[in-house]
């Protein structure tokens, strides 16, 4: 049977050879459990090459013409074969990047007595890197895609907000990392504050709402600066996908956009109610405690009591009667929220593919 080498067969041979090479490579020197290869074969010529032209007949009337013919055929075949197939790997890719918030319930119940409502949740988001490895951070020197800017995100708005373009190359991404508008650089002792963070008053996140203690409420607000702490993490993004989180996506030319969706309610859900409400007495040894709505000042003599509800206030542990709650950067609640924002439930990464 006569075999005709077409572009397809040559490409198939190349692919087979490549598979074999990959297999060998993995067998012999695999250092990671999976290889991340994305191979596309594009053949742009339909010329077929007939190997019979390559054969030199034993008996030929004219050696010179035979040699000329065979040589020409060999050269053309080789040249044609080389031209006809192009195997390419990663290709440049640009994606639309959207951010999106999530509507939260009117109140997030922390305990039977305490609930929080969230009326403002804005954060400075970016830069964002999608990484090829399963671990971001130090091992993401070379990213798959990146967006090196930052934008203010209304985390309570379910509307998609276009913030820029993700730039990079095709391939699989297995991890991500980002900052909240304040980025640590190898070259600077102090992190760089983005315009987005400046817009929020030099803060990464601004949260505001009401604390409901039973039927009484007071407003609360938190301006949180989230940045890389200490020299050891210099140059590394502050939020990184944890190893326990499953994440992977094959980025291809069909990938159209990425939407990062934040859910602020998840940040509040784990806040301890004790931060806002307590039933304590002076036996705790503190100078001031709350017995529900009653502020108790512990003295050596008789404790002094004041019912905050009479003036429309609530008793907040550590603060006593107050009609508004401004959470400090290093307050317990702020530390909790920072923990949630950096290592808690991650935002949702939604890739949209083009419809063919």
């Amino acid at each position, binding site marked *: 049977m006569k075999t005709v080498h077409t572009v397809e067969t040559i490409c198939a041979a*190349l692919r087979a050879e*490549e598979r074999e*090479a*990959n297999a*060998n*490579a*993995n067998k012999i*020197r*695999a*250092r*990671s459990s*999976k*290889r*991340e*290869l*994305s191979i596309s*074969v594009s053949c742009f010529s339909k010329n077929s090459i007939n190997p019979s032209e390559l054969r030199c007949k034993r008996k030929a009337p004219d*050696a*010179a013409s035979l*040699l*000329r013919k065979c*040589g020409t055929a*060999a*050269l053309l075949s*080789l*040249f044609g*074969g*080389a*031209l006809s197939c192009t*195997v*390419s*790997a*990663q290709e*440049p890719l640009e994606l639309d990047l959207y951010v999106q918030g999530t509507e939260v319930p009117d109140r997030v119940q922390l305990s039977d007595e305490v609930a929080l409502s969230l009326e403002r949740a804005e954060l400075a988001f970016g*830069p964002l890197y999608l*990484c*090829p*490895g399963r671990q971001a951070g130090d*091992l*993401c*020197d*070379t*990213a798959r895609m*990146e967006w*090196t*800017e930052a934008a203010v995100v209304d985390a309570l708005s379910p509307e998609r907000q276009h913030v820029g373009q993700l*730039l990079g*190359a*095709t391939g699989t991404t297995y991890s991500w990392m980002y900052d909240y508008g304040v*980025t640590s*650089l*190898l*070259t*600077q002792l102090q992190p*760089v504050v*983005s315009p987005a963070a400046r817009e929020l008053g030099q803060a990464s996140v601004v949260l505001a709402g009401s604390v409901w203690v039973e039927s009484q409420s007071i407003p609360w607000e938190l301006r949180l600066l989230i940045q890389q702490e200490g*020299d*050891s993490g*210099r*140059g590394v993004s502050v939020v990184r996908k944890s190893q326990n989180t499953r994440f992977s996506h094959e980025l291809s030319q069909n990938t159209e956009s990425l939407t990062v969706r934040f859910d602020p309610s998840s940040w509040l859900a784990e806040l301890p109610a004790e931060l806002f409400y307590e039933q304590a007495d002076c036996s705790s040894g503190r100078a001031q405690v709350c017995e529900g709505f009653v502020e108790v000042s512990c003295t050596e003599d008789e404790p002094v009591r004041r019912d905050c509800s009479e003036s429309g206030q609530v008793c907040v542990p550590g603060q006593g009667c107050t009609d508004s709650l401004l959470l400090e950067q290093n307050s317990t609640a702020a530390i909790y929220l920072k923990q949630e924002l950096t290592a808690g439930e991650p935002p949702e990464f939604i890739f949209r593919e083009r419809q063919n």
Partner: protein
Amino acid sequence: MKTKWRVSRIVLQVAGWTWGCGSWAWAQEHPVEAPDSVAPSSEEVQASDESQTQPGEPEQEAPPGSSEGGDASRAPQIELPRLIQGVAPEYPAQAQGEGQVILVLTIDSQGRVVSSEVHESAGALFDAAAQDAARSYRFEPARREGLPVSARVRMPFLFLPELPPAPSATGPKSADQEKELELPGAPVEPEKARPDPHLEVNVHGERPLRTTRRGASDFMVHREVITAAPRQEGADVLRLVPGLTSFRTEGLAVAHSYSLRGFDSAHGQDLEFLVGGLPINLPNHIHGQGYADLSFLIGEVVDELHVSEGVSDPKQGDFAVAGTIDIGLGVDQEHRGLQLKSGYGSFQTFRQHASWAPREGHRESFGAIQYTKTAGFGENRAGQSASGIVQHRFGSGALTYRFIGIAHTARADHAGVLRREDIESGEICYHCVYQLPTARAQNGLAQRLMAGFFADYRGRSHENGSLGVWISHDHFRSQQNFTGFSETSRTLALVSGRGDLIEQRNTTHSVGITGRYRTEAFKPMEGVHGTLELGTNARFDVVHQQQNLLDGAVRNQTWDRRVDASISGMDVGVFGDLDWELGSMVRARVGVRADALSYEAEDRLGNFAPTVRPQDAFIPGYRRSAMGLAVGPRASVEVRPLPWLSVLSSYGEGYRSPQARTLADGEKTPFTKVHSGDVGVRMRWGEPLELSSAAFYTRLSDDIAFDASEGRMERIGATQRMGLTLHALSHLTDWSVTSFSLTYVSATLLEPPPASAEEPAPPFVAGQRIPYVSPLVIRLDQGAHTTLVSDWGGKPLVWRAGLGFTFLAGRPLPFGQVGDNIGLLDASLGLSWGVFELALEGFNLLNRNYPASEYQFVSHWDPKGVPSRVPSRHITAGAPLSFFLSLGVTL
């Protein structure tokens, strides 16, 4: 009395291709073939005893595949010089009677008479008249394998007191006939020549000692082509090599970046370079394996290039992966004497050249120096360099000797890489440098001293051999920043971002020997004969190297140490080569080469991990040794079915030695093995046109490519290349030469290192094109010269023009990117008058901004900005439009 003269019947004698005794052979019909029993010579053939002539040798036209430098057992084609223009001498007014003057004229490769000596005097008046006339003569130069070479001609002038009878068909017109000579278009036939041997022609030529053009991808590039197009520096002659690209990518003091036939040879890792028999590549160099800096080359003394693309010759050793380029040094007759040349051009570039080559000395004997100083184009490219080369061949008879010494030093600043997007956004200009201390501190320093002594033996019966010793000292230092601010110190805790200014230092001391012997021909049966060659090369290298990170802003403070090592390496290679004629049409060459390499590496930073273990747990350092053997066959077959056609096929297995610092203790040295095959044709239609075409395939077991984060080459796994080379050399007119080459190659990665935790997104994946290598390289060299005024102040005024054009298709880059197409046009115009030469050269006449190199990697050049972590395109800028004017005098 009328002027009367005639040239007697012209008799030509051609130097027989004997060495030592230098016998004369009577000219046969053109082309002249050497007697079979005559041994080859690589030196100028001298006239001597006629008794050794062998007129009865059968005529045999040299096949195209055995052109110059191509075949050790066949004599090259010789074409004798022909007188094409001349003025008859005046019969001296005060002279009386008859007189015959015999002059020995030296005719250069352009056909000009560059010197005349009175061999036989007829008195001062006749002598002067003859010499005056002879100096204005123009000849069609002698040719060896179609290429013009210089020659010495013994020419008689017979002065007669009265008008002689009409001249013969080969004689001149009478003085009354405008004194223009119409001398023979071709040498006279032997029957006429034999009785009256007044005119002797002594063609200067080289006869190769061994077959060197084995495959269709082997080329010889001669001086005539070398000088055709302008060049900015000596190493630019490499652009004449079909398929080779050569660019200055890291300043004047760092080796060029080469690529050939789909190999990104970087600074020489895949190309074996020899200059005057001295090996240039440096094994285990910190800046790249096989580092080969040819900056010391002085263009005026580059005589020829012998190019072997692929691997087919058992003599090819380490680094002969893409091929071997053997550069011969010498000074042609035209420029012998004391030559001084000064030049000045764009960017305050000043160049001073001086050379001395004794007029009667051997072509290979000369001394030359060169000094260059430039402010450099754009920013941060100022530099100086100085080179000196001396070579002397001496001795006579069977044994001759050659000494060669090369000294070179250079220091230059370097602008480094620029991010393409920064150029496109207007943040930085194309030829500028980042205005950062770490970028402006980039520079390089080169120091090299080499010397060699070679003894060559040429026996009467073709047997020949050579023995040589050489010694070399090389020191290299560079400061380069490819990635901006992305490094963190591994040595000092919590220190980072002080600029990735990589300092590399490398000192290599080398000594080596080389020897080979080729037997006389064995003839076991009729029509079958051949020779055996045995040879050896050995070298011993001691290398000291360091790599550090410097802070360019604080007096080069060292803020990290990456390499501190010493390496000793030994390479002992032996080879054997059978070279046999099998009948009249087939020639086969079969050989084998074996190299044993051993290393000891002392890595003083080995096991150094301060952030993981307490430093007092062990003493840093990792000493180890390794050894390996590389063996590979080499074979080629040449079939000559027609006089004008040769079909050539060759196969060879070559190797590249590993970086010793990457070896583990006791590791069997993992050579990079190359399997290289060529098949092609060489066609030659007489003098005007030679064409060759070859298809090639190579497969490398373990390739390496540039890693920007380390500023050096790193492994990328197995690779393959297949492609096609076309080459044409033309002398369509006697006043021009054209050389054209086209090389297409498809080069792909087969087995790149898999992704790892350290490299989760490897820039190289299986199936992709090998980065940084242009798939299509086209080169055109065109040279022309002719006499403007035949007698201007008693001397001819000759103009010259040259053109060089290079085209490179866009180079594939990692991460699916493709570089720009590059087209470069250079041209020159020159005048020569007597001892003076004036030349104006223009480079990059289209004034294209072109990247001398392109890379794709992650960098961060804004120390106050958010870093990018996605690989980006980077370039090092090539030189813009520039001009250079030079004035030379040869005394």
